[in-house]
């Protein structure tokens, strides 16, 4: 018997009460219906409420947030942010169509496209979603917004459309299923709440550890 079959047989002998058919049916029903459990009230509310809670929570974990009313203002906002952080006016982005269309020349920014390289100081990505209840950004992998952009540069700027700010993780799961299909996931889904940190030496919180030092979220209303 293979290790696999032996392990499964052993587990089955411990948990089965001769009711395998019923157990299998219970598992498949649960997987197919993936019911929601209790969802905390904190994030639930109208657009303004979700935007406010998201902002408060993100700031509480060390991220910064600004709101623009027009997506075409993003290059300018990003350029300002880099200048105020004493960083060169250079950004790395993926092939995301919404980001590609922005008037980058307005911000006098130098833009590179692709996955992050070791020398990149700052990146910009477009979020798949935001979650108000914990101030969390959700990113999906792929050429549009490569995963390395979330981790290698010291500054990570995120464009988040207000319509994509959900109350809870569960609403983001629904959007994932809508886009990628039931039971199917992109290679990586990153849930990010603020810049990298560690408390491993005498429980003193230090930023950054291995990821970005700063996370700046530009919310587009």
């Amino acid at each position: 018997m293979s290790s696999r079959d032996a392990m499964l047989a052993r587990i089955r002998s411990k948990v089965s009460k001769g009711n395998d058919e019923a157990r299998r049916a219970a598992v498949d029903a649960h997987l197919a219906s993936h019911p929601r459990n209790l969802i905390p009230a904190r994030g639930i509310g109208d657009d303004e409420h979700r935007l406010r809670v998201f902002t408060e929570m993100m700031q509480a974990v060390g991220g910064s947030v600004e709101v623009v009313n027009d997506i075409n203002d993003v290059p300018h906002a990003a350029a300002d942010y880099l200048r105020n952080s004493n960083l060169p006016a250079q950004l790395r982005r993926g092939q995301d169509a919404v980001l590609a269309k922005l008037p980058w020349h307005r911000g006098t920014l130098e833009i590179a496209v692709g996955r992050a390289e070791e020398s990149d100081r700052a990146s910009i990505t477009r979020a798949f979603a935001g979650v108000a209840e914990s101030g969390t950004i959700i990113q999906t992998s792929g050429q549009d917004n490569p995963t390395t952009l979330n981790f290698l540069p010291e500054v990570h700027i995120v464009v988040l459309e207000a319509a994509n700010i959900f109350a809870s993780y569960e609403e983001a799961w629904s959007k994932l299923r809508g886009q990628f299909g039931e039971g199917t996931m992109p290679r990586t889904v990153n849930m990010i709440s603020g810049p990298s940190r560690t408390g491993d030496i005498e429980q003193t919180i230090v930023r950054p550890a291995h990821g970005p030092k700063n996370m700046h979220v530009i919310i587009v209303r």
Partner: protein
Amino acid sequence: MEASAATFPANVIKALADSQLQYAMTETGPRFQTKRSVARDALPEFDALRDQSRDIKNHVLDHLDIYLERYEAKVQASGGHVHWAATAEEARAQILEICRKANARVVTKGKSMISEEIDLNHHLEANGIQPVETDLGEYLIQIRNERPSHIIAPAVHLTRDQVEADFRKAHTHLDPNRDLTEIPALVEEARTVLRQKYFEADAGVTGANFLIAETGTSIIVTNEGNGDLTQTLPKVHIVIASIEKIVPTLEDAATILRVLARSATGQDFSNYTTLSTGPRRDGDPDGPEEYHVVILDNGRSNVLGTEFQDMLRCIRCGACLNHCPVYNAVGGHAYGWVYPGPIGSVVTPALVGIENAKHLPNASTFCGRCEEVCPMRIPLPKMLRHWREKEFERHLQPASIRWGLRFWAFAAKRPKLYQFGTRIAARVLANMGHGKGRLRNVPLASGWTKYRDFPAPQGKTFQQMWKERAK
């Protein structure tokens, strides 16, 4: 890894006499406790989420064979490979083989307790592969060749001074006159040293907090971002996880994630929660080309269907350690194996055998705090009691304890004799305290009183007071 859990009493004496350790541990428990209670108070639904989390895991354990099959099918459908390891030895061999096939020389590692459990690093080293821990705490103990002393804060037993000394010893290529007085300077140095390793590595090993059956996804939770660089940059990503990490759906994962970080560090959510499914897809500019999951049993299935099954609900948050008076006094190393604290005292006997861990079920004051704070509502004190019973049944306790208990049982069954005995003992102890209420030493209990005073009995015995109140 060899367990020294059998020498727990000796380990404790050493720990209590270790002034560096005692200094490092002073603030640890209270700080963790405060953070958790602030996070709990900020979420009115917290206790209801604990109930649901418990129910989710109970459902999984009752259907574990089927969920594992569903999970495996999903991993394969997304282009990943699943390896089944009944023992630590099998898991080590499988990981080594994957590394060899990839011609790996350097392997970066995210934090994984399973890796500690199977002693992966020594095995890789013995076979010419350099493992590099990237979680700061794990890196610190790796360069000291130690084990973690806490489930989520592996280096919590170290002081800043020790870290500085270790870095000067380990990073000899750096300027010996550099200033490392401040903690941020130490963190910055680790970041720079490890950044290079992410790019050099041929394979990255991570643990998993959860495996999602619905999608074939593994989840890691970190604050540093080290796990993400570990699994994104090398060609091969290897996940090691034990059988009980399964949760059914994304929704179920979300529920348990809501109690995990709050119980662990008092955060609402950890900085990085990452869901990984298979290798890089067509057109992906980054991510690993191969994705492997090694699923480990290593004794866990022994407790399925027994009075110990509930321990498999554990999500390794560390809350029971942080709230344990014994853990906070002696630190994690005294427990002698990989998992310390109350959950360690419950899990270790199951995984290494009660005969190799026979003192651990006694490493408890039965104050009940661990069960009170456990997000998965694991009845830890009850399980410790079960182990004590097993230990007693199997005659693993020293003759003096067995004899003493038999004597106590004899007296306890004869109320008059018992009351007489306790009244005498209380009076003798009270006199020894000379009215100060503290005893500097107690006959036959010097192991206790060397490091703390024993409260002298004040006044009457419980039974005397009970009788008086009943009147």
